[in-house]
Structures are given as structure tokens and as C-alpha cells.
């Protein structure tokens, strides 16, 4: 299935993907409104700035997701290969934050639910981090991984 991959040779560490991600999931029409209206939406992708390297990290949509297995509320499921959190069921205990080996689950701003990359299936359908990467460092492609 198609997944989001980052090429650390190309990632510039500009962090713009974080903003486009947060914006895409904010429901606002304008990016500046999403950030200026005090909502301060949280990105589901994170850019790491290491020693001379940068790369963006987001949910790997694992074959056997630990977050899903460990979720105490049964709020995490895998739908068509996409690991999703049901906000109606999530109680914000953050056992998923504790579990994800890649640090890809983000405590929600409200403190009551966790969020994560769902490949923009709930908004535009095209991962916005990929769409807006200024250096083509993030790609959305099928590398033969199972759904």
C-alpha cells in the first residue's frame, strides 16, 4: 500500500510539513487562521534535527501496531492499512504514546485524546506533508509493503 516515506538526504529541516499537517487537520480554510485563532493545532508529523541531519517522522502504519494492541480503550484500529484513532473512544491516557516505538503519536492539545497521522484520509485524501514539502523529501508511494 502507499505510505509516506522521508528521504533524509533531501529533508531540509524547515519544519514546514509540521505546519501544513496541523493546518490540514485544523478544518480551517486559511493557514494563518488555523494558527492565529488560538487553536494552535498540533502536527502529526515531527521533524527531527539531529547532528547534521534532518528528517520528518510520522506513523509507519505498522503491520502489527503496538499502539493498537496496547490501547486500553480499543480506540485504535487499522482500516485499509491506515492506523486510526477513534476520537470518540480515546480517553487520552496516552498508552499509545508510551507504546509507539517511533514516537509518532501526539498528545492532543486538549489533553483528552491522542492524534496521529492518518495519511490525510480524513481531509484532502492526499498527505499534505508530501504535497507541500519544498524539497521533495517526503514521498507517498507504494514500496510493496502490506496494507
Amino acid at each position: 500500500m502507499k505510505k509516506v516515506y522521508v528521504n533524509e538526504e533531501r529533508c531540509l529541516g524547515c519544519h514546514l510539513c509540521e505546519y501544513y499537517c496541523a493546518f490540514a487537520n485544523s478544518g480551517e480554510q486559511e493557514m494563518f487562521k488555523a494558527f492565529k485563532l488560538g487553536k494552535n493545532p498540533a502536527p502529526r508529523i515531527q521533524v527531527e534535527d539531529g547532528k547534521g541531519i534532518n528528517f520528518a517522522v510520522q506513523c509507519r502504519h505498522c503491520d502489527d501496531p503496538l499502539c493498537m494492541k496496547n490501547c486500553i480503550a480499543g480506540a485504535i484500529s487499522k482500516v485499509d492499512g491506515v492506523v486510526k484513532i477513534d476520537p470518540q473512544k480515546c480517553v487520552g491516557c496516552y498508552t499509545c504514546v508510551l507504546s509507539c516505538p517511533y514516537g509518532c503519536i501526539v498528545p492532543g492539545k486538549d489533553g483528552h485524546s491522542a492524534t496521529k497521522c492518518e495519511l490525510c484520509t480524513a481531509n484532502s485524501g492526499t498527505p499534505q506533508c508530501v504535497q507541500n514539502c519544498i524539497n521533495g523529501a517526503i514521498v507517498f508511494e507504494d514500496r510493496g509493503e502490506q496494507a
Partner: protein
Amino acid sequence: MKYEYVIIGNSAAAAGCIEGIRETDKKGSIAVISDEKYHIYSRPLISYKLKGDVTEKQMAYRPADFYKANNVDTMLGKRAVSVDSKSKFVKLESGEKIEYEKLLLATGSKPFVPPMEGLDTVKNKFSFMKMDDVKDIEKVVKKGAKVLIVGAGLIGLKAAEALEHYDCDMTVIDLADRILPSILDKKTSEIMQKHIEDHGLKFILGTSTKKFDKNKAVLTNGTEISFDILITAVGVRPNTELAESAGAKVERGILTDKKQACKGVKNIWAAGDCTVSDDITTGTAHIIAIMPNAHEQGLVAGRNMAGSKAVFDHAFPMNAIGFFGLHIITAGAYTGDCYEENDGENVKQLFSKDNKLNGFILMGDKIKRAGIYTALIREQTDLTTVDYQLLCEAPQLAAFAHEKRYEILSKGA
């Protein structure tokens, strides 16, 4: 009645077991027996229900069609009283016999209520473990009620947090001199205590109750506390009676091998809070009563019951929990060299030993990306192969060697 697979218990371990069986065996008949009458629900969510955050429906641990989709027969509200491992059947309270080919004991634990003088005179006394406990509390709790909670552990404090929504006047007492001793060290428990106290709770620590007299408790230090509701959350005990009746080996909890098969008997597996696990962070065997463990053990048991090979060999305690908006994530054992960061309620403590991460306590802002630390424990990563200094500063994949990171980022897990 006869089933290929019989599961006693209906929580995380049971769900894991069903999922494990159905990975390979789509047909074999499965029955779930539980003394609770509810669709599989998440036990820890009872405090969220009491608080009003979730409805009973939202507490479902698996979707409403879970049993049907997995072709599972349920016997809910029925108590199993004994297991005959020779003739391979489970006897129910009703006298019914359920024959099995393979049996999973996922019996969980029950509240431990120590003998306390006059406890029988208390009318509104509750444990806080099950759906029915919440329903019972909901029937009697009124706004502004005076609540006495015995036990400042995870259960007691989750109950307290939920009841704060009823503006209850709450007092928590514990024999220990600090709160949450099972998951926090002295320093962090003090921070959490202060945080909870700021929300109006009173703690009386290092004390126990001498006796009860209807709506009044007398403490060993002589203090008298009156209350409308009493919640006892002193501790839990594993439900091992069925295992014992089957002739399985039990020491504090049910003993199993790495495949979750019970020792001393055949065709019986056990998983969840009723079992003893080998803690990789302490090297000792004890009960690690946490949900992720239960599910994982159930899954491993299910896979083995259905004939595939699986082992569970990385048990260690871990908890993610929050009280009144202050979140904590902890794992492992708090021994070894400690890296520490302290900024008010934002605390990080990492414990390393023999070039391995052995445990951590994260609080407040520091919980972000905690799973990267958890994975270091789970995988017993040799810390000389990573940039541990960088990891101390923040959990990050940048600390891993390029090849490892490439594996994660370009291939996925």
C-alpha cells in the same frame, strides 16, 4: 456443550486470545465465559465513565460485532467454578459443563479488601474495578458528597479524579507514606500529590483505618473522618482458584511458560492479571497487571492454542496515566544510573544499567515520544549502539545509527 477453544474471562487477554486464534484458525469453535454480563469492555475506562467522559457504549473494548465477526459463542453472566483438566471441562455455577479442547484462563484479579473492624456497618462501600462498581456508585453519589478513599494507588486516585466531577469532598488515606508507590518514586509522587491536592483532595498518608462505624472512620492516629461513600482500593489479588482446581501451578499468580501455557497441566493456557510474568527489567517473576501485557499474553496464548508459534518474553511494567491534567508515563525498574531533568511538573528520569535502559519516569511535557524509550527497554537495546546523550535530551530517532533509522523511515515497521 463442547468447544475447541474455551476462554474464561472477557477482557483484554480474552480479546487478544480470540484475535490470536483467528489469525490462523478461522473455523475452530470458541466460547467465552464471564461472570460479567457485559459486552467486552475496557476496565480502566470505568473511571472515565464515572467522570462522564464516556458512555457505556463507548467503553466497548472491541466493536459491537466482535464476537459475531470472530464467530465466538458467549456465556456472559455465568460464573465458572472449577476446571477438570483430566476430562477437559469447565463447570459453571449453574452446574453446566463446558467441554474444551484448549482452555485459556484469563480470570484477572479481584479487589483485596483487608479485614477492617466495623466495615460491615458501612452502607455505601465500594470497590472500583468493574462496570457494576461504577453503576453502583452512580446510584448513590450526589453532588458534594463526602468520599473516603482507602488506597492512594492508581485505582483509588482514578476514582478520586472521576468523583471530583461531582464536587465531592474527598479524603484519600494510605498506609504508605506517599501516593502511587507502584509507579512513582518519592520525588515524583510528591509532585503528583501536590498537583492533586491543588485540585482539592486531601491526603492522609502513613495511616490506616482502625475501625469503621457506619458513616465514620477512625484512623490509627485517632483522626475521625465522616463520609457518605467509602471506596476501598487497597490492592488486588489474582483470581487463581480455577487454575488451582485444574491442578495448574500457582505461586502468587498462575505460572506459565513463554508460550503462556500453564505449568503442571496440559491444554490450559493463562494470560493477563492472573498470571506471573518474568520482568526483563528486574529479572524477577511477578504479576504485571497492565492491559498491554494482558492483551499481548492473550494474543500469544491464542496463537499457540491455534498451533502457531509465538512467545512473550519481554514483559515489564509500564503505565500511562494522568490525574487532573498532569500526565505520567513510566516503565521498567527505577534502578541504575539516573539521568534527570526537573522543571516543575515536567520531570524526566531515565534509569540505565549495564548499557541498557532499565526504566523511566516521565511527567508533564516530558511524556512526548515516550515510546522511543519504551522500545529501548522492550528491545533491550545496547546503549553503546545509540547516541544515549542525545536520547537523554529528547527521545528521537536521530540518536540511532543511520542504518537503523533508514530501516524505520524508508521501509516502515
